[in-house]
């Protein structure tokens, strides 16, 4: 019964989304207040029904209802409860439902937090988002129904892919999707503004907090995924340039460019066309990413069983949504009035250069991701593109972007003061050079790439600090948008330090160890105590124990595991990590080589945590910027003048 309620709720949600898209877009175009008024309640109703559907699917997983095909193929009665719930989005159908749920949450948020916007604008925004919801809901209902029954019911399920049985699975996909889908808000704002012709600074101010919020979620989602890959896969790496990773990284790059471009449009009224285009591209890449992952045109470690019908459906949807918005752009963009003028040395030109660099970097990632497909489609043979391409193309593009990010906050809008900038940059340059020269000395080994990385990192950190000092000295007010920007830039610096030091100074050893053997690496001693069998809830594990000591003092007892999951019989490596600010000690278990001896791999990864700490700092900076008072102030003013809006909210809460 519960799955049928879920299925029915999806159908109701589709009907509501259709009504929302049709009525509110027509209403806004023709100026029919009754139609426009439908937007908010319809969006909220759609949220309620999608949430019910999601709850029903989660319940089917929770209660082990193996008469639902999706549950039978992706869960198992011995699967721990948290993973049973996470398995809700572990399958193709379930992850689409999560996608739509996230979209509905964003629509709900827009419907609640948009009282400062004109009614017809809200109607257009929600209408565009409703159109997207129509596409995805019908995709689910027609090709990938998550509630499909399996008759007769299976006795037990085929289990969730062991790779996904991890706390990371509980948090990573919702965060990532929240970010991915969040760009639909900026997209809907852009389309609404193009339809309306009101493409101005106010539009940019409305879009900014939404875009930044989506970007924050995406940043956290990507960082979580990277951290998960680091400790779960047992390879010790943290980024593999896998097509699916790239699919989430491309919208991030464009989202970053968009945030910066929006700043110019809001403050100076410039780059309007460019900003709109970036908003369209950011969400288009989210859709493209969904297509790449869900259609199976590319092979990847994330690849799932696929069905060509689904691919064609998403591709048509992609063509309609993106093709439609780019046509609208081509049709309307030339009418947009040019913004304020600016000199070559100005914050505008810095931000423009940065967003172009980010766009080009995104293009390079996209080329590498799709190149095998292009060649194949042209009949020129089949190839795969590996990390060497991405590293050699991506790094040189990001280096100038980071240099610019260090300078940007110091340069004035419209026209910068070259002499003053030179004075300020002197200190930044000295700090960066000192850091680049002396930090490698502390590690005892120098390499050109190490110094380059550190130079960039210290450059952006020192530049950011200088910008803060300059602002404090000038007695200007420091708002949270400014602070958030500085924090995010500092996060980039921290992130670059992490990458540089890990790449330069990580050490590893592969050892054959019998119980009682000791090995040393980087000043640490590792004593292998042996391996014992340990049954888990749905797997059998061989757990090794390794005592790590330094100067006779015990630092950690590490227990790396090798697990065999009972249902799918896949072996999984669970690395054991002793984390710290300045280094991670990472131990993973290889193979048994007889007589109680095992191959053991130990890594020392200096400063690797800084990579994720840097990402979190960026995300926190974004959060701070999005919560700036000037976005809230506008809303509070409207609160007083629009008492009826609370009634709407109260009726659906």
């Amino acid at each position: 019964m519960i799955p049928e309620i879920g299925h029915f709720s999806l159908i109701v949600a589709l009907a509501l989304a259709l009504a929302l898209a049709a009525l509110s877009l027509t209403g806004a175009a023709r100026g029919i207040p009754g139609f426009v008024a439908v937007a908010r309640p319809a969006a909220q109703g759609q949220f309620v029904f999608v949430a019910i559907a999601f709850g029903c699917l989660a319940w089917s997983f929770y209660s082990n209802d193996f008469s639902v095909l999706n549950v039978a193929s992706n869960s198992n009665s011995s699967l721990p409860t948290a993973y049973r719930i996470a398995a809700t989005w572990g399958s193709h159908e379930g992850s689409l439902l999560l996608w739509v749920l996230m979209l509905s949450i964003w629509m709900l948020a827009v419907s609640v937090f948009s009282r400062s916007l004109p009614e017809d604008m809200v109607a257009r925004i929600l209408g565009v988002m409703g159109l997207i919801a129509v596409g995805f809901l019908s995709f689910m209902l027609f090709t990938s129904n998550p509630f499909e029954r399996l008759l007769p019911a299976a006795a037990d399920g085929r289990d969730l892919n062991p790779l996904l049985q991890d706390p990371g699975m509980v948090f990573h996909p919702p965060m990532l999707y929240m970010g991915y889908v969040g760009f639909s808000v900026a997209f809907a704002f852009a389309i609404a503004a193009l339809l309306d012709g009101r493409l101005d600074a106010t539009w940019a101010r409305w879009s900014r907090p939404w875009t930044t919020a989506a970007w924050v979620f995406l940043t956290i989602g990507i960082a979580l995924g990277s951290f998960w890959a680091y400790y779960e896969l047992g390879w010790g790496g943290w980024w593999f340039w896998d097509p699916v990773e790239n699919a989430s990284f491309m919208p991030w790059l464009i989202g970053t460019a968009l945030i910066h471009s929006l700043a110019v449009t809001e403050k100076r009224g410039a780059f309007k066309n460019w900003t709109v285009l970036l908003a369209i591209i950011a969400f288009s890449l989210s859709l493209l990413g969904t297509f790449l992952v869900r259609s199976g045109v590319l092979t990847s470690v994330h690849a799932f069983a696929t069905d060509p019908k689904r691919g064609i459906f998403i591709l048509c949807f992609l063509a309609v949504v993106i093709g439609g918005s780019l046509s609208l752009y081509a049709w309307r963009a030339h009418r947009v009035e040019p913004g304020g003028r600016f000199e070559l040395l100005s914050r505008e030109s810095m931000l423009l250069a940065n967003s172009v660099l980010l766009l080009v970097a995104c293009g390079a990632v996209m080329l590498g991701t799709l190149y095998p497909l292009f060649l194949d489609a042209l009949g020129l043979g089949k190839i795969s593109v590996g990390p060497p391409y991405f590293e050699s193309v991506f790094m040189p593009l990001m280096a100038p972007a980071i240099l610019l990010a260090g300078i940007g906050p110091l340069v004035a809008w419209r026209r910068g003061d070259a002499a003053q900038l030179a004075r300020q940059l002197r200190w930044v340059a000295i700090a960066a050079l000192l850091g680049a020269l002396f930090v490698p000395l502390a590690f005892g080994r120098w390499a050109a790439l190490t110094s380059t990385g550190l130079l960039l990192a210290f450059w952006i950190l020192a530049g950011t600090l200088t910008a803060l000092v300059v602002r404090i000295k000038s007695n200007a007010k420091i708002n949270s948008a400014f602070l958030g920007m500085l924090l995010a830039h500092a996060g980039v610096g921290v992130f670059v330090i992490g990458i540089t030091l890990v790449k330069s100074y990580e050490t590893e050893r592969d050892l054959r160890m019998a119980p009682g053997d000791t090995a040393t690496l980087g000043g640490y001693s590792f004593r292998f105590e042996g391996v014992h069998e340990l049954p888990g809830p749905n797997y059998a594990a061989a757990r090794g124990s390794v005592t790590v000591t330094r100067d006779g003092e015990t630092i950690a007892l590490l227990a790396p595991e090798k697990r065999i999951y009972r249902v799918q019989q896949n072996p999984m490596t669970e690395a054991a990590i002793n984390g710290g600010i300045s280094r991670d000690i990472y131990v993973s278990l290889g193979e048994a080589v007889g007589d109680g001896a095992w191959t053991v791999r130990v890594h020392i990864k200096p400063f690797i945590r800084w990579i994720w700490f840097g990402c979190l700092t960026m995300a926190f900076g974004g959060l701070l910027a999005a919560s700036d008072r000037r976005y809230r102030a506008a809303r509070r003013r409207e609160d007083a003048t629009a008492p009826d809006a609370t009634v709407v909210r109260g009726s659906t809460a």
Partner: protein
Amino acid sequence: MKRFLLPLAIFILLVGFLAVGLKLDPREVPSPLVGKPAPAFELPILQQPDKRFTPGDMRGKVWLLNVWASWCVSCREEHPMLVALSKRGLMPILGLNYKDKGDEANAWLKQFGNPYDLSVVDADGRIGIDYGVYGVPETYLIDAEGVIRYKQIGPLTAAILEQKILPLAMALKK
């Protein structure tokens, strides 16, 4: 107006490629080589670079040729399966180390285990072209006459191994 059409034009081109791409399955491309003799080669052996190997050495045996590289992420996915298979000793498994560096390849085998009776080095990918390798990993089942009987593009899965490759190998052995 014209320059604003550029993004649309690029996008239409992209959709064209994606549409063609949908028809191509990157995993199951029927190889023209199935049923044909395995292309000959003579390549140095990874662990003993002064020795060379040719497929002719395997005459009379049913064997697997697995194309791998240390830079290939999907190889790590299938690797435990190959290691487990090699322990069962059902048939020889040979590796074709594709466009890789010797020290990195050796380190990789050390880390993940070496299921291969031996690996040959195809540093510039020339032999890969003869075999129609388009992505790593790929796996070929070659019979006692030196004829390719099965080709797997992309990582092996337990299902493919147990249901397709092993039964076929057992049948060929008889």
